[in-house]
């Protein structure tokens, strides 16, 4: 009986998933994030997502920031997970965040011009990182950049929200959520309760 229940639940889950995906036309990469193992990574190229809140220029900066915060390295990052689309969608419905995001993006471009003579996207990767580091690390904070730090905090928060709630984000953490078990999972290190002799960290 229990086995049948699990099957039924899995069917319901997939039906719910299809229903949930349907109302989002234009969410090109979300459909990947929603998707199944069989779909290859090569299918994730953007199909000209049309931002709902940000201008095209703003959206490009948002997308670049998400990539810098959670980059593509040995594993997929914010770009593959469609995080910029998520942020645009959420901010389009979030009056409280619209003003801070818009002014934050202006601040970032003006700040880049002031320091390095080019808007943010005109900078090299290294230069972009040099702009963000003083906003992100306490030890590197600079006087007068409080607004920028606040904008970066919001950007990072939305990026985390958008990344770790996708299938890609779940795989990144090897998130064990919503798997089913026959009995309550038990610590496998019974002889080492203090966990002083674990194998070396996996990463």
């Amino acid at each position, binding site marked *: 009986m229990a086995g049948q229940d699990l099957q039924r639940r899995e069917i319901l889950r997939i039906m719910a998933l299809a229903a949930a995906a349907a109302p989002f036309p234009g969410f090109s990469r979300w459909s990947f994030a929603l998707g199944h193992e069989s779909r290859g990574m090569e299918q994730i190229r953007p199909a000209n997502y049309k931002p709902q809140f940000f201008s095209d220029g703003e959206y490009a900066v948002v997308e670049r920031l998400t990539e810098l915060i959670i980059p593509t390295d040995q594993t997929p990052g914010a770009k593959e997970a469609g995080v910029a689309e998520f942020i645009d969608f959420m901010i389009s419905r979030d009056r409280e965040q619209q003003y801070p995001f818009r002014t934050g993006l202006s601040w970032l471009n003006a700040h880049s011009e002031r320091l390095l003579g080019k808007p943010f996207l005109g900078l090299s990767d290294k230069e972009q990182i040099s702009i963000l580091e003083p906003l992100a690390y306490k030890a590197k904070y600079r006087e007068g950049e409080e607004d920028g730090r606040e904008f970066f905090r919001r950007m990072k928060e939305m990026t985390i929200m958008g990344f770790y709630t996708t299938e890609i984000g779940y795989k990144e953490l090897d998130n064990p959520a919503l798997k089913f078990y026959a009995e309550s999972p038990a610590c*496998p290190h019974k002889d080492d309760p203090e966990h002083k002799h674990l194998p070396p960290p996996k990463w």
Partner: protein
Amino acid sequence: MVTMAKQEYDVIVIGTGAGGGMAMKTLCEAGLKVCALNAGRKLDPEKDFRNHRMPWDMKYRSFGDPATRSESIGFMDSEYVAGVWDHEIKFTTAPGSKWFFPRCLAVGGKTNFWGRSSARFGDIDFRAASLDGHGVDWPLTYAEIAPYYSRVERMIGVASSVQNRPSNPDGEYLPPFNFRCFDNILAKGAEKVGVPYLHDRIAQLTRDHEGHPACHFCGACTTGCDTGSFFSTHWRFLPKAEATKNLELRTNALAKDILVDENGMAKGVAYIDRGTKQEVEVYGRAVVVAATCVETARIMLNSKSRFWPNGIANSSGQLGRNLCDHLYGESARGYLPQLLGQPSFPDGVGDNTIVWMPRWQNLKNPKEESFVRGYSVYPYGGCSEYPWYAMQAEGFGSSYKREVKRRYPTPVSFSIQAPSLPLDTNFVDIDPEAKDPYGIPLARIHFQWDENVLKMWEHSKKVCADVIRAAGGVYEGSADEPAVPGWSLHDTGTCRMGNDPKKFVTNPFGQTHDVPNLYACDASIFPSPTDKTTTISIMTFTLRGCEHMLEDFRSGKLKRA
């Protein structure tokens, strides 16, 4: 316009949560005709619980629609259960008081989502007033109530272990949930500090029980269960009551007041049909009110008549008084470096609430600490569905991404559960002006944390930080403030029980002294809170109270309809 229903029932039950659910089951099974009134709708688990959906299946990834954030009541009112928590029926607070009061008015009430911790109260709780001089003792002993606890445990299934602790009587348990890695590490730390770290008593099935399948350990309990593997009225008591054919369940029926006959005894309930917005009267030979402390007080205080000018069964003046609550808050958080970079582990089973640190303070000497009584702590930790610690890690880029991954199995957190003391200044009355959309005067809450419970809060912060450090962990901080009163959803009082009709609203069976055919069957009858949660005790005292009522039906004191 008042619609008159012709049929008369034996008993009208207001509310279908832990207390109302137990009442309707017990009374229906005994052959009585019961009409249960529930303020909200009946849930359809397949539609209303989205617990097996992944965040990317949800339009707002479980965070909810930012455009309607201001309407959210927060807490468990998430996208997973959107449309289940009530937004219409309000309450007010007196100047200077804060109260958080999310209400699930669906059939089964909060049992649909509750935390499932199910510890018995003991004599140390019932005799607390004698031990420390605050408040009043409970009007019964543990020996009197223990057999009822056993019966409830057998009905609902509670997983735990025998622990032999003076403040925590052991019960009849299914096998406990297993300790996870971080449990074993923290338990060692707790041992060094000299505090307990044990299996919680949890009303969740670790094996098949009474025709219900064992838990499948998916971890999404507080968004509802689709297999009924933890106790809820919806899955357990409602089907049993319905099977007797003695139950009529009326949904969207918001109780307004209790009707009295020419002798001032209860004769029924007036309610608002939230569908038609009309007032309806329903009649019964006895009435059970089980609407939660605040709402029970609201209904009874609003039940004014020439017999009961200050609210029904309120000759003592105690109706609405003695409101207490559990103080909640994050006493400490940190991480365990031992687990950095280790493989992920399904730590989130049972929504992570499967262990506890039961009260260890003031056990031998009731005045050993700077505060009286005691608190418990619930530890949480390990791999959670969402990496809530990720904002705490500094920086960005590949090193940041790796740090989030490395820290995934390591976070730990401790939440205090501390009982407030009854104060004259903490109570519920009726707001003289504010009314709900149906014209019913609203409950008004007067509440402040007392000094004693705030001392427990400070104490817990130190001990929990010590446990993290003793376990080899890194302590990262505590909440600045405890949670807002009401947050725990563990309010008690307003109809406290005792033997003296001059001082107490109800007798030791929850029967009101003034109106013998009116019973309160929720935590409103508890004279004081304890370090334990309230639900299993609500069910246990309700079972005992309803069997007392059944005696009155058998002996003819109460006549069948």
